[in-house]
């Protein structure tokens, strides 16, 4: 009896392994989404507690954003319908300037995170992407929720939005970039120059 059970489970294991091998490798799993955010959070934690100068931290944040974030899609979404009429050179110059602008704007805010910590709590699947939910604990403040939205549609596992207490970075920047473009009468090149400055 015993050996029978053993053989059956061995067979089942083999069948399982075959089924696994047959699965398309592309689908993002919650483990991968979580893995990406674990790396992001680990890097953020080490940057904010590195004791480096503010200027150096901006550079670190920019690198982090480019490594783990889907910069082309975030920039394009922030640009909104205006992205349609832009040339591909303008789009890539804008994505570049946008990365610089974001790291400065939010890098400055991360100073408030010094001494705090971000903990990944869990993941959930929403439509075609994953949300990785984390909890941020800062000294003397009530903990708040930070959600990373992760997708593999770029060919790599990257985050495309960060949502803090319901506030989406993507939406917030779409509003801001829209206002900036309006102020410059839709002149994308002027906007790119100003974002870099």
């Amino acid at each position, binding site marked *: 009896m015993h050996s029978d059970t053993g053989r059956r489970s061995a067979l089942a294991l083999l069948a399982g392994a075959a089924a696994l091998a047959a699965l398309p490798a592309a689908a993002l799993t919650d483990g991968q989404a979580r893995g990406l955010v674990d790396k992001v959070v680990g890097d953020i934690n080490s940057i904010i507690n590195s004791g480096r100068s503010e200027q150096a931290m901006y550079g670190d944040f920019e690198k982090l954003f480019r490594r783990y974030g889907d910069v082309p*899609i975030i920039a394009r979404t922030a640009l909104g319908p205006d992205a349609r009429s832009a040339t591909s050179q303008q789009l890539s110059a804008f994505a570049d300037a946008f990365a610089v602008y974001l790291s400065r704007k939010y890098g400055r*805010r991360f100073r408030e995170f010094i001494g705090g910590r971000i903990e990944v709590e869990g993941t959930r699947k929403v439509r075609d992407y994953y949300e990785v939910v984390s909890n941020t604990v800062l000294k003397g403040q009530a903990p708040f929720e930070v959600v990373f939205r992760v997708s593999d549609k770029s060919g790599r596992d990257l985050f495309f939005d960060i949502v803090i207490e319901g506030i989406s970075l993507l939406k917030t920047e779409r509003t801001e970039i829209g206002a900036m473009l309006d102020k410059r009468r839709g002149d994308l090149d002027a906007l790119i120059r100003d974002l870099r400055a």
Partner: protein
Amino acid sequence: MTRTKTAGLAALLSLALLGACSTPEQPTEIHDPYEKTNRKIHAFNKGLDSAIVRPTSRVYGLALPKPVRRGISNFANYVDTPRFIVNDLAQGNIDDAGHNFTRFVLNTVFGLGVLDMAGSIGVETRRTGFGETLYTWGAREGAYIELPAIGPSNERDAVGQVVDFISNPISGVIDASDEWIPPTANVMDRVNQRYEFGATIDSLLYESEDSYAQGRSLYLQNRRFELGQEDAFAFDPYDDPYSEDPYAQ
């Protein structure tokens, strides 16, 4: 509660529940038919902030040591707790009502209202208000409005804020001569928040190229999150019609 107060409350309630709120035919992310007026109020609020609120908050923050400021804010939260409990019950949220009741007892007995002993053992504050009660009763959000001196709101929450202001149950148990204390504590708590989150508020008000649109977006997103509403307008940029293939370069 006086008779006029009760009548006023009843009028506000029927206003909110009968759907006097301006509601679009199709749900939209931002419903702002009063934008022109709202922008004027926003400019006024910004002026008020730079002339009075911001400088006051800096004096307040620098003059009073942090434990004192925290004590005042704890007290503001403490006197609001009976109001939270009443609203929890009105929402049928027995769990939060019990939680807030426990907080109130613990902080009365061990904290004299100024120490948040309950919070320090994990019975954290769970704020609520009449705006949330209206939401659970089915009232719609209505149009976005910016209120003078108060800031971003919507039609439903504006009614909630008025009711919250005039109907704190604690005023039923304290002496009439002490009635100024809870609202004063609340104002001081708001000044403290302006100090504590100063950099965040500064960057919103003075660094954004359209602080009105930015404040409106932040408020609506955060408020819907607080109420536990699903993000019906979540961006999936990979489905964005404008980005058929951002990787083709």
